[in-house]
């Protein structure tokens, strides 16, 4: 069969709980054009090679005018593209600048030293579940945990979450392929609004931090002078917005998908309980098996690219179906089995190449800690419904709620 409407089926909400059979269908044609729309790439080696291909651009300005129609191409002066939507050299400069207060070489211990703080947040959230026999893992744990962490890291007041939560959700939803023209129009409208509000909110915060710096990333970005100079105010705002949204919308799914997978595989849950060290490879397997980011929908080509027998023409929109690639039987043995101590596991869960996930080390630590502590402390956790209700998002996929019953909370 051809591509006809496969993308539409993948994004169809009815298929959210289990898109994997559709990916298997898609992999029969590694590179295929979906209905007059984007080119979908679904096999491991092809995705990996395109992630390292200097003819592939993340900058929407390189789309053909026809393909660009309907994207949010018109530049929003309040929130221009962050480094995730840029190519080198701008991408490299901005990412280096953003990395300075976050990781090596300039701040190598920032994430490592958060270990104690992360443990404390996890303990606090689980402690608060005492005397409950029914919980929603998303609302009670998987959402508040990474949000608290990203807020502290950036220096965004946690109590403002009620404001920026909705903006972040709207921006995350905009990653999904647009539906009808009217839907698109409505989406664009609310997106513009959300971006404007978020930018205005962050602008105020950055100004505050510039005047009175604290030990957080916003302060560092506002005051730092390194070999690449300084970020402009608008660059700080777009970078902060990116990190805030990413911190919001991805780790929550990793943790929730993790707990769901463990509850579906009780033997693995038991193994993790008796051997917490298993969390390290288990989270890698999770990133392969149920990745929070299912596809990378924002690439295009600077030239005709001949790959797997198909020529992707210059300027075509390109969707890299990473969740499908990580289940490619040409690359992974038993790809549809969850094997927590899988050794040969170079998954695509955090992408690869230039745009590999900025927050990956933090997300890894958060998920390792969260899952270890959840299985240790939740007594007899059981799924209330399987599949659980999912969020609408197809790109950033995960359950909206994960109702569980427990018979108690251990110390």
């Amino acid at each position: 069969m051809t591509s006809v409407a496969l993308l539409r089926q993948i994004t169809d909400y009815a298929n959210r709980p289990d898109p994997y059979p559709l990916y298997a269908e898609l992999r029969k044609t590694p590179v295929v054009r979906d209905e007059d729309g984007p080119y979908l790439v679904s096999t491991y080696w092809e995705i990996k090679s395109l992630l390292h291909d200097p003819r592939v651009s993340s900058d929407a300005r390189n789309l053909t005018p026809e393909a660009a129609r309907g994207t949010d191409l018109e530049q929003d002066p309040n929130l221009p593209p962050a480094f995730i939507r840029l190519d080198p050299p701008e991408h490299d400069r901005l990412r280096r600048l953003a990395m300075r207060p976050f990781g090596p070489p300039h701040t190598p211990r920032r994430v490592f030293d958060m270990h104690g703080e992360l443990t404390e947040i996890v303990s606090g959230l689980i402690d608060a579940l005492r005397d409950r026999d029914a919980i929603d893992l998303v609302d009670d744990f998987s959402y508040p945990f990474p949000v608290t962490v990203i807020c502290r890291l950036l220096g965004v007041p946690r109590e403002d979450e009620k404001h920026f939560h909705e903006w972040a959700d709207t921006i995350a939803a905009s990653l999904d392929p647009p539906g009808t023209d009217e839907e698109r129009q409505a989406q664009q409208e609310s997106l513009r609004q959300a971006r404007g509000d978020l930018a205005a909110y962050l602008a105020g915060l950055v100004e505050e931090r510039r005047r009175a710096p604290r030990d957080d990333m916003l302060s560092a970005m506002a005051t730092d002078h390194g070999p690449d100079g300084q970020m402009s105010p608008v660059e700080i705002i777009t970078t902060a917005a990116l990190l805030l949204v990413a911190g919001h919308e991805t780790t929550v799914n990793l943790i929730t998908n993790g707990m769901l997978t463990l509850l579906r595989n009780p033997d693995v849950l038991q193994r993790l309980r008796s051997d917490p060290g298993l969390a390290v490879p288990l989270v890698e397997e999770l990133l392969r098996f149920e990745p929070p980011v299912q596809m990378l929908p924002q690439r295009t080509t600077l030239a005709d690219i001949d790959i797997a027998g198909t020529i992707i023409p210059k300027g075509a929109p390109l969707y890299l179906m990473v969740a499908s690639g990580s289940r490619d039987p040409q690359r992974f043995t038993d790809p549809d089995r969850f094997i927590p101590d899988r050794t040969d596991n170079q998954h695509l869960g955090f992408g690869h190449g230039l745009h590999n996930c900025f927050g990956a080390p933090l997300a890894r630590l958060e998920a390792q800690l969260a899952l270890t502590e959840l299985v240790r402390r939740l007594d007899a956790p059981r799924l209330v419904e399987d599949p659980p209700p999912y969020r609408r998002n197809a790109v950033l996929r995960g359950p909206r709620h994960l109702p569980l019953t427990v018979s108690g909370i251990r110390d």
Partner: protein
Amino acid sequence: MSVDGYLEAFRRSGSIVIVGASLAGLRAAEALRDEGFTGTLTMVGDEPHEPYDRPPLSKQVLLGKVPADHTALPRRRAVDAQWRLGTAATGLDLAGKRVSLADGDAVEYDRLLIATGVRARPWPHELEADLDGVFVLRTRDDAAQLHHRLKAGPHRVLVIGAGFTGSEIASACRERELPVTVAERGAAPLVGALGGVVGEVAAELQRAHGVDLRCGVQVTGLEGDSAGRVRRAHFSDGTAVEVEVVVVALGATRNTEWLADSGLGAGPRGIACDAGCRAFDVRGIVTDDVFVAGDVARSPHPLFGYQFLSLEHWGNAVAQAEIAAHNMVSASTDRLPHLWMPSFWSAQFGVNIKSVGVPPMADQILVTQGSLAEHRFTAAYGYQGRVIAAVTFDQAKWLDFYERQIEQAAPFPPEFPTVDRRPEGMRPVAAGFPDPSLPSHGPTVTLSGHSPTDRRVSFSPHRA
């Protein structure tokens, strides 16, 4: 006994001797056990140390971050070998299948793997080389002694030769804030490995980090004081510098002297072997039971005109050892070719330099991404209209793509646009290698497949 029967018996209870107990030797031993070889395994090494890793010696060790004796290689698995360390092999009797050792002993083998590697080329004037303060850097002991001397804070260090090792030593000295002079006979550092265009960038890096870099000069003499300590170096341009430490970094010599009368095809350029790592004898006939791996081997590579490549590369030692080990215990039709893509890295002056392919074969170079002036770039090398090599300065994430280009014998200069193409990337220029020894025909062979087991070579007949 049938051939199959022989192989089975050999795999079960035969004896294998590996001469050379460094990276290639160790990885081969591990691979033999992984392949199911259960016979006797003897490891012969001239150094008294168990296998250790050399790349940290010119970096972490000289910087004082890691003691020289903390470089032992991790074992991937137990190898259950008999170790003859601190005992050099002194001769080989091909007919008698016997290796003689420096202590007068001899070991017999059914199959032999030679992985004796290289040693540092010493300063040619023996009396000057013997002066206190004159060093080479190849072994763990060399590194320990040089580090000890650098720690004492010499008032100036002279590095002779600005190849990768010499440049890394100079970088470590500058990081230790030691004054350092680098003398290079060629026009720029790294010029032999990466050509004049990239060599100029390396020169800028050195000067920006305060190296007193002198190119196009030779050291004509080292002068000692009455106590036999080196104190001055004289250059071919008539100048001289006062120095307390001299590091001779003039490349390497292959350890093949012990094979001189063996009848094996061994000489100063290494030991010639076929693509399956079997050694040639002096008649040009391939041997059945003698295999070669690592720096000492020269083997034909289909991607580079079947030239016999001799690669002093860490990754080649590992890959060739694994292929040699597999072939040593496999039937003829199960053997694999060594098709490793030449690759190396160097860290110097805070920059990560990586390369794939064979740059010195190139006639032209094109900066396809980034900028030479910013010291962050990717450049492709071309030979007769094909991509033959690539180099990156702090842009390693792009290198895989260029490796595929080399494997596919892609056209040079690349016809497509890339992200971050600058004006300097619009047309190729002469690569600037000092003495190109070019092969007689272009690559008409391509590689395909992603894993060692599905790698294939395909021929494209020459088009008129």
